[in-house]
């Protein structure tokens, strides 16, 4: 009996030693896709969020259209559209996997987060705008110096949550053949089916360890947020 446990232990440790370096091969892809998606995701969120508050009805409705389309359809289908369908239809190339992957994730999460941007800006007390009109600030100065900094503090906690979600969403790029950690894990499992539990256990651990600093960041964001919106 004791021998059996020892035997199992050796097998598990052996497996981990075997799987770990394979998964590590994909980590730079996962991290690259994640970082680029975060940068563009926030960029799209701010652009779309501000556009939805524009006085111009064309800008406003175009942006709403984008937001509703990307929120209302599946991220995987969007990814396939960008990588397989659009290049074929228009004969122009997103033949670059990285570009397609990053665009799909950032456009999708940008659409969700634009609602946070819009909501936070609208949630800043009207009195703040009135006070800055009374000080004769321009429309742009009012947004930049008074409304936006306060709105940003309200956005932080939600932004943190989406940061973690974006990390997990990067695993989808393995479906268009990007060699991220999930891709390498799947290859290994298909060559050796008995590896499956070890591979997927390690994958969970990988994602969780990468998410830890993001969870910490989110907590920080919440703290800053609480401090920042005290009454004026």
């Amino acid at each position: 009996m004791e021998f059996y446990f020892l035997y199992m232990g050796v097998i598990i440790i052996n497996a981990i030693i075997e799987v770990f370096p394979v998964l590590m091969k994909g980590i730079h892809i996962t991290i690259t896709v994640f970082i680029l998606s975060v940068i563009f995701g926030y960029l799209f969120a701010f652009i779309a969020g501000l556009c939805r508050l524009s006085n111009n009805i064309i800008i406003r409705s175009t942006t709403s259209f984008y937001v509703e389309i990307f929120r209302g359809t599946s991220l995987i289908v969007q990814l396939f559209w960008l990588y397989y369908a659009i290049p074929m239809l228009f004969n122009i190339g997103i033949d670059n996997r990285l570009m397609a992957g990053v665009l799909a994730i950032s456009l999708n999460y940008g659409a969700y987060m634009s609602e946070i941007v819009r909501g936070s800006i609208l949630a800043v007390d009207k009195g703040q705008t009135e006070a800055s009109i009374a000080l004769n600030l321009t429309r742009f100065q009012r947004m930049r110096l008074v409304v936006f900094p306060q709105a940003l503090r309200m956005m932080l906690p939600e932004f943190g949550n989406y940061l973690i979600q974006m990390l997990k969403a990067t695993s989808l790029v393995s479906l268009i053949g990007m060699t991220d950690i999930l891709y390498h894990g799947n290859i290994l499992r298909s060559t050796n089916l008995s590896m499956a539990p070890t591979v997927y256990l390690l994958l969970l651990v990988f994602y969780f360890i990468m998410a830890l600093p993001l969870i910490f960041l989110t907590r920080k964001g919440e703290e800053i947020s609480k401090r920042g919106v005290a009454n004026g």
Partner: protein
Amino acid sequence: MAELVKEMKQSITPKRGAKPIVEYKDVYKSFGEVEVLKGLNLDIFPGEKVALIGPSGSGKTTIIRMLMTLEQPTSGEIIVDGTDLWHMKKNGKTIPANEKHLREVRGDIGMVFQHFNLFPHMTILENCMTAPIQVKKESKETARERSVEMLEKVGLGDKLDNYPSQLSGGQKQRVAMARALVMRPKIMLFDEVTSALDPELVGEVLEVIRDIAEEGEMAMVLVTHEMDFALEIADRVIFLDDGVIAEQGSASEVLEESDNERLQQFLYRFRS
């Protein structure tokens, strides 16, 4: 006594012959179905201290909010220093004012709000410095120096680096006044500035307003429920009722001698 006060008030009443700095001409304002102002005609003279009193919903606050460009009149004209605030001329035609025109005309107007509206993410010094730097293009040093001076004047020289959330209501309102004063307005608007304060904090705010009033250069329009204070500093008290000026005159005339029935009812409620 009343006679004496009246005489004194008249002697310091500003140059009525002078050109008014603000003119309301037949101004109407509706919010949806509700008509708040029904043909307001009012001149305010340079340096004059005007108190607006009246029951809630009588349009007092709307009057000064329209002057600060926070509400647009439904019809009529508001002339500030000779220029129509809400309209501009383009190719000989009169059209609604754009943001640029509003900014040019409202530059000499400052306002203090009932709920202070300080910027919570800035220290009180930054609250005061921002507009002089951004709007008047003052150097950081000049803006800082003048802001510190103004904050010292309102008795908050030791709180420069505090955030608004660390101050009491009365202190916040004094910061709000310093912030407005740093912009050197010719017209200051006070929108029920003591209404949101605890009773024991009202005094310190009125003290500052009294000081500003004594300097005398600015025109001041106060929407207030502090009748005794209005009597003390106002050159003219205006009683608004149902969207029109129901009674106006020197403080003693309006508060003590008028036989307007609505005004009597209103004052009675305040004094009981």
